[in-house]
């Protein structure tokens, strides 16, 4: 007579397999969704970049190999946009980091309205980009803008300046807007880092006679280095890719004065409907950004070690 009892070794094996499979089974819905909405479009973009594909001629999907990439590298606007992207990243992120750091240090002090200040500081970060872009467009307006009115009254300028219509000031004006929008992110992240530094470190340093500056340099900065590194990495990717504020404020103009690479890729694909060429610019930019990110991670890891 056979019994229903199972071999203990079999049941152990089953439970091991179950334990191994379960995590994958639990993860698979998320992985499948990510594959569908992130990786599939990425692969599709890479595939389109190797073709001549103009949306209003959907039947012509001709293989051109690296033709679009060659054309992009020979395109004057590509290089103008790349230069602006570099300026955009190299000024916006340090400015946001610096402002965020100062704000976080201030918000870490004791004062009675600190909770209100902490809540207020998040407002620029919480506002939608389009609202921010429209708001700042009016601030910069050369006819009615408060920026000109303010500077004229102070006597800093003698004539109203068309901040967004002048190629010398347009990009800088948008960078200022984005700095304002993004610094609360750094402030909040760094503030969290500051609060994780034990107060006893500062007490010990004071007893040893360390000045406020020495305390900042030897305790505060190393204490928030990890947070800052992550925050800079995230912002680097977000700022590089963000073009909504530029698109609303100037549409990339005047001329190409505020064109960045993501904006140029968008205009080529969405407005000119040239998806092949637009995709090739997006692919080139992704590769460049990856190189920057890998370089940054290596350097900062070394510094952290």
């Amino acid at each position, binding site marked *: 007579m056979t019994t229903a009892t199972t071999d203990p070794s079999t049941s152990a094996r089953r439970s091991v397999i179950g334990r191994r499979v379960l995590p994958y089974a639990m993860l698979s819905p998320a992985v499948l969704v990510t594959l569908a909405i992130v990786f599939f479009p990425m692969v599709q973009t890479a595939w389109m970049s190797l073709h001549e594909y103009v949306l209003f001629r959907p039947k012509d999907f001709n293989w051109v190999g690296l033709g679009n990439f060659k054309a992009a590298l020979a395109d004057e606007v590509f290089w103008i946009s790349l230069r602006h992207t570099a300026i955009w990243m190299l000024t916006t992120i340090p400015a946001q980091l610096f402002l965020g750091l100062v704000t976080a240090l201030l918000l870490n002090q004791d004062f009675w309205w600190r909770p209100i200040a902490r809540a207020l500081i998040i407002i620029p970060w919480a506002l939608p980009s389009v609202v921010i872009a429209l708001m700042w467009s009016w601030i910069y307006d*050369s006819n009615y803008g408060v920026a000109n009115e303010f500077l004229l009254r102070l006597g800093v300028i003698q004539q109203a300046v068309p901040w967004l219509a*002048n190629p010398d000031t347009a990009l800088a004006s948008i960078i200022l807007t984005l700095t304002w929008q993004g610094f609360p992110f750094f402030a909040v992240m760094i503030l969290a880092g500051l609060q994780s530094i034990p107060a006893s470190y500062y007490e010990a340093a004071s007893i040893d006679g360390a000045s406020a500056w020495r305390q900042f340099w030897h305790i505060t900065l190393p204490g928030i280095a990890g947070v800052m590194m992550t925050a800079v990495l995230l912002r680097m990717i977000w700022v590089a890719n963000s073009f909504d504020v530029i698109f609303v404020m100037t549409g990339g103009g005047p*001329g*190409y*004065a505020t064109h960045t690479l993501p904006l140029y890729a968008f205009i080529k694909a969405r407005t000119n409907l040239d998806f092949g060429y637009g995709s090739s610019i997006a692919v080139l930019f992704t590769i460049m950004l990856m190189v920057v990110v890998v370089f940054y991670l290596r350097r900062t890891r070394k510094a952290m070690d």
Partner: protein
Amino acid sequence: MKTSKFLGIASALALLSSAAYADSTVRFWYHFDNADNPMDEIVAKFEAENPGIKVEAENIPWNSYYDQLYTSIVGGNAPDAAMVKLFAQPRLIELGALQPIDDYLANWDGAANIEDGLIDLVKGGDGAQYYLPVQYVALYLYYRADMLAELDLDVPTTCEEFRDVAKALTRDTDGDGQTDVYGFGFRGAKGGHDHWGTFVLGAEGVSLTDGLTSEAGIAGTQFVADLFQKDKVFPLSAPNDGFQEIIGAFKAGRTAMTIHHIGSANGMVEALGDKVSAAPVPVCGGGSWTAFGDESTAVFANAEDPDAAFKWISFLSSEGNNTKFNEATGQLPVVKADAANWTLHPARFVEATQNSVAAAQLLPSSSATSDFVNTVWPTNMQRVLIGEISAEEMNANIDALFSE
């Protein structure tokens, strides 16, 4: 409990009956600037007159109207019918997105009531009829009659007079050293090709497809650049100014002249009363050019029920309904009887439009026209205005686009 059950069953039945009642649905896309528009009212009237057809009208923001339309066509989710402009027709034909309506028109009594020549004007490049006109305008010059009177100036009728008048109107009115009024509100951003066209395309032998790189063509673009750089008669923000900016500046008294159509007349009168008037654009280079602002409706090739879709678009271009439609857009009706009884705009603006129609031109029926309007013209014009490229280079770039 009983009441809620009863209500539940009743609403389910009501839903079922309405779904069964609508034999076909027409998905219609349109773009009205004013969100508070009478489209629901028009749809309700149509549905009452045509039981069995349901219209789902969707107001799409103008800025991304064509981006969304093209994407929806390629994505296989195009509407059944939509408002469309002529510049988009070549691309839509190339996409195979439009349904020919020649047969429908032949059997439709209302066709004879449309203003003469309009239906032919919007015929497709391949000879078939896809578009049914629904409204039209011709661009003209808005001017501040009070400012001209104050300075004892006449309305400019030529480019030379225009330059002199614009210079005289550009003034520091309060003596603080700042220019308070600019002579002309120029649209340097997307859509401003209509302004540029007046100064360039009127010249003899110059059009977008021919003669643009000639001496006369280049002189026209240079004239625009000089108005901004040398004469300083445009606001400093002109390179980036779009529709909102030029209309806003004119209403606020920051500019004394600008070019637009009757669609903005009522807003102007509301802000400025009798101080604003209109006249045909000046003659430049020996000829006159202004833009014909067209708007039609079309049935799309993928329409589930093309008969119902045509019924709906023809309803919009029929007597009475066309007036209602144009009350929302502020443009002029295409139906003869509606035009004869038109009272929405003050007569001086209707007259300026009628006097401008003779010089009104359409953009070339070419696939390149969309790129010209959306990117090539604005980018090149802005680069000329900020001194990055010359007038000659700009005209050569546009010429190259249309020669491709």
